[in-house]
C-alpha cells in the first residue's frame, strides 16, 4: 500500500479546487504581482552583482517564483516557513520588503540582517520566516523544530520547509523524515526539484525509483507531486497537505517540478555547460510560471495586457527604488562586527577580543 496521496486537482482540474475557486480576482492579481516582484527584484540584483555592488554568491530563484508565492499565499498567520540559500523569492513572498532585502545584498546597515547575513541568510521571524540557510539540507532539522514547536504550543499551523533536489541526499534530511513521521509533526517538506544541484543532474545525484518524494514511503509518510508551472495545481496540492498537517498533525513531502534559468549562482561559470541552451529556452518558452499564470488570468479575463504591464512596471520601479535605497544606505559601523553575537547587551565583557 503506497503512501502517495491519491490524485486530485491536477492539471486543468486544479482550477476547480475549492481553494482556487475561492480566490478573488484581487488575490489572483496579487499572486501575479508577487511573482513579478521577485523576478524584477532578482534581475536588479543580478545587474548590480555584476557591478560589484554585492559580494559572495547570489543564487537566483528566477523560473521558480510560483512555488514560494503559492506557498506564501496559503499561509494563515500560524504557519511557519524555512528554506535554503536560494531564499530571496520566499523572503519577498512572505512579505519582506525589497528595500531591506536589497540593502542586505549590498551589505548595508539597513539590510534585513544589518548586513550580517547576506544573500543566503535572510530572516524575518515577525513574518514567520526563519531563513535562509547556507548549508545544504541544514534547514530541514530546523524546520522539524518549527513543526515541533507548533505542536508543543498547540498552534494548529504547519511548518513549510523547502529544499532542493540535491539536498535530499543529506543525512540530516532523512533523519528528519523519520522524526517527523514518528512524532506526527505538522511538517510540510517541499522539494523544489529544478533538476540540478549545481552542475549535477538529478540522475547523477540520486538513486530513486521514480521520484525523490517516494523516499517518504520508507518512513510511512505521505507524499505527492506537483507541477511548478501550474499555479492552481501548486495551490491545490499545497493546500491539501497543509490542511492535513494543521488538522491531523501529519507530515508529508510534496515534490514540485520546476526549473532555474540562471546558473547555480551567479559565480557559476559553467552555467551553460551542463545544460543545453535548448533545454533552458524550452522551459522559458513553455513552462515559465509567470507567463503561464498571465495567460491564465488573461483567459479568465481577470487582467488585461495593460494591467499586466502596469503591475510589471510597478515591480520594476520598486526594484529600482530598492537599489537606490540600498546604494544610498550607510555601511554598518565597524564596531557592529562585535554586536549581535550574544543576547546580552553589554557583550564586550563576555567574550574574547584581541583588541
Amino acid at each position, binding site marked *: 500500500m503506497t503512501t502517495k496521496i491519491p490524485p486530485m486537482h491536477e492539471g486543468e482540474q486544479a482550477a476547480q479546487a475549492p481553494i482556487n475557486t475561492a480566490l478573488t480576482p484581487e488575490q489572483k492579481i496579487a499572486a501575479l504581482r508577487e511573482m513579478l516582484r521577485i523576478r524584477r527584484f532578482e534581475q536588479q540584483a543580478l545587474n548590480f552583482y555584476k557591478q560589484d555592488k554585492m559580494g559572495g554568491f547570489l543564487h537566483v530563484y528566477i523560473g521558480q517564483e510560483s512555488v514560494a508565492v503559492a506557498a506564501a499565499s496559503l499561509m494563515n498567520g500560524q504557519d511557519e516557513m524555512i528554506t535554503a540559500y536560494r531564499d530571496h523569492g520566499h523572503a519577498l513572498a512572505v512579505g519582506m520588503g525589497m528595500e531591506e532585502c536589497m540593502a542586505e545584498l549590498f551589505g548595508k546597515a539597513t539590510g534585513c540582517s544589518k548586513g550580517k547575513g547576506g544573500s543566503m541568510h535572510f530572516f524575518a521571524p515577525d513574518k514567520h520566516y526563519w531563513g*535562509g540557510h547556507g548549508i545544504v539540507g541544514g534547514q530541514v532539522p530546523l524546520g522539524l*523544530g518549527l513543526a515541533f514547536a507548533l505542536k508543543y504550543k498547540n498552534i494548529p499551523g504547519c511548518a513549510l520547509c523547502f529544499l532542493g533536489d540535491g539536498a535530499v541526499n543529506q543525512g540530516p534530511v532523512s*533523519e528528519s523524515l523519520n522524526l517527523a513521521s514518528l512524532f506526527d509533526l505538522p511538517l510540510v517538506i517541499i522539494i523544489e526539484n529544478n533538476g540540478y544541484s549545481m552542475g549535477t543532474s538529478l540522475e547523477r545525484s540520486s538513486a530513486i525509483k521514480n521520484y525523490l518524494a517516494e523516499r517518504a514511503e520508507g518512513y510511512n509518510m505521505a507524499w505527492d507531486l506537483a507541477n511548478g508551472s501550474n499555479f492552481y495545481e501548486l495551490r491545490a496540492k499545497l493546500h491539501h497537505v497543509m490542511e492535513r498537517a494543521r488538522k491531523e498533525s501529519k507530515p508529508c513531502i510534496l515534490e514540485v517540478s520546476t526549473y532555474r534559468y540562471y546558473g547555480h549562482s551567479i559565480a557559476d561559470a559553467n552555467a551553460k555547460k551542463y545544460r543545453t541552451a535548448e533545454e533552458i529556452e524550452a522551459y522559458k518558452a513553455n513552462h515559465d510560471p509567470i507567463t503561464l499564470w498571465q495567460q491564465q488570468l488573461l483567459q479568465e479575463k481577470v487582467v488585461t495586457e495593460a494591467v499586466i504591464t502596469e503591475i510589471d512596471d510597478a515591480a520594476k520601479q520598486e526594484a529600482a527604488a530598492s537599489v537606490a535605497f540600498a546604494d544610498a544606505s550607510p555601511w554598518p559601523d565597524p564596531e557592529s562586527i562585535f554586536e549581535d553575537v550574544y543576547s546580552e547587551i553589554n557583550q564586550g565583557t563576555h567574550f574574547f577580543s584581541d583588541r
Partner: protein
Amino acid sequence: MPLITYRKALNEAFAEELTRDESVFLMGEEVAEYNGAYKVTEGLWERFGSKRVVDTPISEAAFLGLGVGAAMMGLRPVVELMFWSFAYVGFDQIINNAGCVRYMSGGLINVPMVIRGPANGGTNVGATHSHTPENFLANTPGLKVVAPATPYDAKGLMISSIRDNDTVCFMENTLLYGDIGEVPEGSYTIPLGVADIKREGTDISLIAHGRAVLTALAAAEILATEHGISAEVVDLRSIRPLDEEAILNSVAKTHRALLVDESKPFCGISSQIAALIAEQAFDELDAPVTRVTALDAPAIYSMPLEKLQLPTPERVVAKALTLF
C-alpha cells in the same frame, strides 16, 4: 544544606525549570522512559510526561536541529547528548545553526537552548567515546560553554544556562555524576562568566575547569603539606564567557600559573588561557606559564594507561615544582 550527588543536582535543576517554565523541555536518546543512560533525568518523564521529556531515535543531527528550530520559536530545549563525543554527527547543527543564526539574522533570532551531556575521558570506552570538545565549542563565537566541577555549581549553572537566551554547551562528566556535595534546595543561579576560587593561595595559580579542578585541588593539598607551597585553585566554571579578570588577578597575586586541563593540548582550553596570561600578565610572571593536559594521543582503552593519560595530582605537583 542537603548533601546530594552531582547527578541529582542536575536533576533538581531540570525539575525546577520544568516546573517554573512551560517552554522548557528535555530531549535526547533514552532520557525519558529509560531515565537517561546515566540516570541524570531519572524520574522526570514519570513526573512531567512525554510532552516535556522526550525520547528520540539515534539521530543527533535531526534532534539537535529540532532543538534549534524549537528554540528559534521561543521554546527552551534542553537536549542531551548521551556523550558529547556524539556531537560530531550533529556538529553542523551546533556550529552553523545554534552558533551563527543570531548573528546572521542581525540579532532578530535567539537560540535559547542547552546542549548537555558528559564530556570526559577516564572511563575505558576508547577514543570514539572520550572526546572533550569544549575548545571547539568555545572557539565558536555565538556559543557559550560551561563546565561545572561540583554539585553546587552544576545545579546553579544549569539553571542559569536554561534561562540564558543563547545556546549553552554544558559539559558534564560521568566520573563526577556520583560526587556528593552541599546543594541548596530550590532554585538558585550562578552567573555564567564568573570563575570561583576553590582554594586561596599565594605562590602559584592552578587554573582548571571540570574534573581537572579536583585534580588541581588534590595537587594543591600535596603542594601545601609536602612542599610548603601555597597554591591557589581557580575554577573557571564557565569557559565562554571567560572570567579573564579572575585569572589575571590570581596570577598577579601568585606570579606563577599552571593550567590543568583534561582535554588535548593542541589548541585546547589551556592553550587559550596560557596565551591570555602570556599576553596580559607577562610582567607579573616569575616563571613560564605551563600546563598539564591529557597526554596527546587518542584516548587509550587500557585501564591503567588511561589513568596516566589524564592529568594526575602527581603530574601537577611535579610540573609545579619546576616553576620554583
